[in-house]
């Protein structure tokens, strides 16, 4: 981190003289949540326009070393003022290129809900989610060790605007914090490190901080996830999810022993604390025909709890995952069609959730579904669908494919959506619109019927055909006689 940040810092201090606009941040509160291996930074800002002209955009700056891990960015403001918070308004944040910015900075532009006139102020929140930002240190641990990780960030809010008052709090998972950068006005309370408040800092102020702490939460990283949603108009939505799961924490070294495992099962705090055994997937209610398998067969270690509101599947990989170990598996389930398919303006709409169902801390603290590096989502529509397009609340790559399955003639159209760096915050609904003629449903049964019909016709024709070469051979005469006997 060192040289890069110092460079940033130097560049920033040169540029700091020229303010970019007339905005000033009156108050900035940042909370960094390090309790799981997904880093969530929530920032609440109060901005005031001190210049003469109206301003309608606000610039967010993120250092490049963080921006490459930025999975999710969301700005929201509240209608109304003061404590009485009204409805939430989501503000769009877009990646932009700006001249005059230091090179090691990525800039996002947030358009404000209304133009900010002179002297007016606005409060809004920004949630940014980072993946792969906790680096294990040491990088290799033995089975018996706890896992220590390092997090780096700036002590001050990096902004092109002047910040009047700001504070930062870093929430570690446990009070075991090995090290944190000592600055004035810093204290460690329980498991929370508080920096600030700091007053009147010029634009682009930056001071790196490092936190080194224990984090034994499962570093579950799905390297590649392919979700396939297949619609059948006979009443079923079949979901198949292929996972390639890795423990992204400190690599395991010095072998593995069941002896430790047995002790671990009794006293999990002592042995192998950084490993994890199971994950929980929250499937939609009324999911049925659930299976859990991999390339070499069914995996028998899974449990299912289902009621009318949810279906909870607890899956256990074939082996406990230690740092650096990986596993592949597939989950599949069927869902009733009427829960997800609707009709609007002559088109059919599939409304389905984008992210993967494996859950975060909500249910089981051991189970954290992390950033999926590459997530591929395929929506397989029935044969004969036309004019499809997908509507997703955030940026994805979208393309079309054709898939051949049972009794297909032309193939089924597939809408493929691809997205990198997916976190649980992406678990939002998306819609696929398409047109479908219900008569196409009958195509496959008719094909089967006609197939069998032709087969029987062929049999009958064959039975009545005389294909013998010689009409005078003894075998032929014997056959004729036999037929006669049968007919009597």
């Amino acid at each position, binding site marked *: 981190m060192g040289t890069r940040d110092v460079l940033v810092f130097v560049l920033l201090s040169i540029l700091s003289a020229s303010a970019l606009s007339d905005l000033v941040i009156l108050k900035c509160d940042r909370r960094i949540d390090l309790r799981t291996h997904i880093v969530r930074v929530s920032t609440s800002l109060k901005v005031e326009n001190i210049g003469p002209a109206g301003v309608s955009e606000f610039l967010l700056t993120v250092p490049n070393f963080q921006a490459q891990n930025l999975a999710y960015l969301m700005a929201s403001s509240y209608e109304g003022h003061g404590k009485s918070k009204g409805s939430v308004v989501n503000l769009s944040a877009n990646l932009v290129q700006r001249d005059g910015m230091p090179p090691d900075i990525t800039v996002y532009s947030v358009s404000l809900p209304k133009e900010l006139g002179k002297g007016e102020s606005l409060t809004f929140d920004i949630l940014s989610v980072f993946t792969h930002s906790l680096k294990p240190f040491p990088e290799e641990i033995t089975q018996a060790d706890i896992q220590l990780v390092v997090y780096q960030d700036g002590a001050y809010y990096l902004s092109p605007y002047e910040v009047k008052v700001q504070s930062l709090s870093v929430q570690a998972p446990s009070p075991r914090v090995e090290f944190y950068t000592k600055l004035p006005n810093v204290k460690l309370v329980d498991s929370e490190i508080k920096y600030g408040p700091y007053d009147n800092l010029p634009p682009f102020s930056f001071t790196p901080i490092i936190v080194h702490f224990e984090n034994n939460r499962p570093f579950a990283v799905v390297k590649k996830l392919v979700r396939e949603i297949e619609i059948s108009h006979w009443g079923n939505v079949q979901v198949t999810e292929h996972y390639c799961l890795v423990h992204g924490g400190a690599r395991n070294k010095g072998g*593995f*022993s069941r*002896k430790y495992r047995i002790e671990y099962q009794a006293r999990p705090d002592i042995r192998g604390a950084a490993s994890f055994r199971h994950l929980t997937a929250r499937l939609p209610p009324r999911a049925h025909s659930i299976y859990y398998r991999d390339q070499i067969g*069914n995996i*028998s270690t899974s449990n299912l709890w289902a009621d009318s509101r949810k279906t909870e599947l607890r899956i256990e990989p*074939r*082996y406990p995952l230690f740092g650096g*170990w990986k596993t592949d598996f597939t989950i599949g389930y069927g869902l009733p069609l009427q829960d997800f398919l609707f009709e609007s303006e002559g088109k059919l709409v599939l409304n389905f959730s984008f992210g993967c169902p494996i859950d975060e801390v909500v249910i089981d603290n051991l189970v954290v579904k992390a950033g999926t590096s590459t997530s591929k989502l395929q929506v397989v529509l029935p044969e004969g669908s036309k004019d499809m397009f997908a509507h997703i609340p955030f940026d994805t790559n979208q393309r079309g494919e054709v898939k051949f399955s049972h*009794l297909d003639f032309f193939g089924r159209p597939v809408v493929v959506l691809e997205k990198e760096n997916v976190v649980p915050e992406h678990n939002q609904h998306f819609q696929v619109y398409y047109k479908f003629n219900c008569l196409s449903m009958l195509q496959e049964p008719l094909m089967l019927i006609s197939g069998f019909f032709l087969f029987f016709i062929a049999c009958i024709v064959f039975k009545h055909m005389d294909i013998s070469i010689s009409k005078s051979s003894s075998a032929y005469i014997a056959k004729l006689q036999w037929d006669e*006997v049968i007919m009597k």
Partner: protein
Amino acid sequence: MAETVSASIMKPDLFKFSMRNLKLKTKQQELLTRFAILLFVYVLAFVVRLFSVLRYESMIHEFDPYFNYRTTVYLTENGFYDFWNWFDFESWYPLGRIIGGTLYPGLMVTAASIYRLLRFLSFAVHIREVCVLTAPFFASNTTLVAYFFGKELWDSGAGLVAAALIAICPGYISRSVAGSYDNEGVAIFALLLTFFLFVKAVNTGSLAWSLASAFAYFYMVSAWGGYIFIINLIPLYVLVLLITGRYSMRLYIAYNSMYILGMLLAMQIRFVGFQHVQSGEHMAAMGVFFLMQVFYFVDWIKYLLNDTKLFQAFLRVTVTCAVAVGGLALGVGMASGYISPWTGRFYSLLDPTYAKDHIPIIASVSEHQPTAWSSFMFDYHILLILFPAGLYYCFKRLSDATIFIVLYGLTSLYFAGVMVRLILVATPAVCLISAIAVSASLKNLTTLGLLDSSLPFQRDGAIALLMAAFFLLSRYVIHCTWVTSEAYSSPSIVLAARGAHGGRVIFDDYREAYFWLRENTPPDAKVMSWWDYGYQITAMGNRTVIVDNNTWNNTHIATVGRAMSSYEHEAYEIMQSLDVDYVLVVFGGVTGYSSDDINKFLWMVRIGGGVFPVIKESDYLVNGEYRVDKGAAPKMLNCLMYKLCYYRFGELHTEYGRPSGWDRARGVEIGNKDVKLEYLEEAYTTSNWIIRIYKVKPPSNSHRISV
């Protein structure tokens, strides 16, 4: 009133009219019944083999099927030519294996063709499902062949009974349950089809049938090494017919065309190659072929000469010449090495004690053990009693066809007694002969009981006997179903046991370990294990193995056996020379799983010692006794296998009320509880300790510096 009366008059008329239309003629009825029964048997044969899918899952079973599955997947992915030319680097490291030239491709090609056909018909099936269901599908087809064969031998009644008997006979089911994707699954079908078509050819003298039987023989050769049985049984049968004076033109046509064409076709299989003209095992067929020509020639001369005395003289000269020429040719062939002598496997078939003394690697395989009486009872049940009765009927109505089935039954039953796995080959014959017994007896009993009543109590006696037969047959059905569900439907990859509370406990350790290997070791890692697990490691673990179940190189296996039975530092040198990265052992001490490596260990010692005399079996025994507790031999307590199995086991409490380090598979407290490993480290152990994987440490730097 009038209304009702007229209606009552009308009714019978209508009824009669419709019934007359619907009523089938007797022959048609019989045909319909026969067809329905056959269809039922066909479905039954398939369904009864699905126990394993219902109890466990749709998966490939045991050891060899995993190799077949792997090659089939390769075939479907890369096409036939790549498959034919496939050199496999993943097994027999560092030698490799020429897959295309060392396997019988019939099974893989069959499954791949079925897969292609289904794909063509736009059924999106997975190749695994096709492989799992191949054996049941062919078992169903076998019932059809059995029906036609029975019909050819006796009558259609015997055919139906034969189809029904073979559909559920445990001797056949043991090798053809769903998931048992092995050569035998299709080979028994091919074997019976060849025999049926040949008998049909002999009966009709038709060229078409004999050509058909040649093609069936070709399919059999492409599918299984057991074709040797056909190529020796058919000449034997022909010889018997010749000796008993049943030589006929029909036989001449059938045998010659079948032999010549079958031989030429069989040469197309690379693994078989020119064996039909070069190997000692195939010479009987060739000898009989020439004998047939002599016979034909002599017959022709006899017809030309028309003089008994002259013919006698001629016969003497020809026979002497023929025998002399044949003997000389064989002698020269053997001496010059053109004709290879009989292989050890063939010898061990003829002489059950041969393998035990000479080839430990054959004797070590459990399915090569001599058959116990109980397994005959287990696999045949009432057929054991019916078989002699059937033989009696066959002798009573001797024909070319019944002579064949008698010969087939007697020879195959002998081989079944030599090796457990050959019960399978005898099963069709036993079923057919028993079917003749059942069908003929039932027919006799019904005639006695219903039509003829000349003797007192004849009717009652016949009915009682019929009831008894029904009882016996229903016992057979019950037995077969029970055996199939309890004994033959276990995949042996997944082990199931009853838990303390009566629930089913699944031990899925094999796949746990193989999947761990697949995901968490370098892709080019070499795994050393005993050869039993080689196929599974390459198929499921996708890693290179040193030896596998294709036991073609005895020295290589002996090297692994030597490594396992040496001290750790000696074994380390062997493992270094073989580039071994991981060592895998199977250990049942925690679960009480008895077919583990410690129980197989003496075979490793024997096979290792057979090639490397440094390894002596007596070093591992105490007074001729094999033990692992405190009284074990010191070499045993410190050899690599012992250390790998019992590493850290001494600290573990396996059973309540027993000391730590209690081995549940052998019921003893182990002798060396403080196992230290110097050159290996534990890499993974499965949840029930059934499979333990160790990583071979790289050579230490300090050692090199000090030198």
